């Protein structure tokens, strides 16, 4: 679709949507959000680009192949689940660590974040795979 409005809108909205996806991903542990809807929003931003331009340029923008995204995401999720098992705790137990940012407060980092990142990548990959395949056919 060759529309100037859409081109401009997609150029503005694409980074905004991605930023929002990342925000949802990290805020998901305490409030609504998380890997799944972050993945959907992220996929929507690329879908918008696909509609505004075409599939090859969206693929170029994504850089990674959707299959690779799915695979990496699964590895992330499994990695976070296995970490606790190697530490002698039950499979998939959340491990937490943290550090202090001077003046900004305490930051907690845990394996659930890695798991959520994995979910994010899988959802992003699967949705984009579907969208790309459908628009190419």
């Amino acid at each position, binding site marked *: 679709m060759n529309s100037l409005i859409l081109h401009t809108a997609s150029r503005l909205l694409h980074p905004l949507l991605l930023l929002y996806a990342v925000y949802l991903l990290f805020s998901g542990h305490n409030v609504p959000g998380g890997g799944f809807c972050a993945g959907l929003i992220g996929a929507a931003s690329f*879908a918008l680009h696909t509609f505004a331009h075409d599939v090859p340029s969206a693929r170029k923008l994504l850089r990674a192949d959707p299959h690779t995204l799915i695979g990496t995401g699964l590895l992330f999720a499994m990695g976070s689940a296995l970490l606790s098992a190697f530490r002698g705790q039950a499979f998939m137990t959340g491990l937490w660590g943290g550090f202090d940012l001077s003046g900004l407060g305490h930051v907690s980092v845990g394996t659930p974040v890695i798991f959520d990142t994995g979910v994010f990548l899988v959802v992003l990959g699967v949705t984009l795979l579907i969208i790309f395949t459908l628009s190419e056919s």
Partner: protein
Amino acid sequence: MTLVSIVAEVTLSMLTFSMFFALMRLAQGPTLADRVVALDLTSTLVVGIIAIYTIYVKEPVLLQAAVVLALLSFVGTIAFATYVERRGRP
């Protein structure tokens, strides 16, 4: 009963009322374009309802749902538009 809650209640009922007409257009809509616009209107109304409801119950977390819906409904309408364009029929 504060002023805010009264306003919220009135607005919510008005939005619901408009939703009724939007859905009627969606069901009736002689052309596909009518339906697409009706669908877009519906989602915009839902965004409004969520926003008002957020104020009504004082739960800012719910606003995220409205933001997500607003962003996605835009993409959804565009997808519909491309589909209509590609089919070459209104």
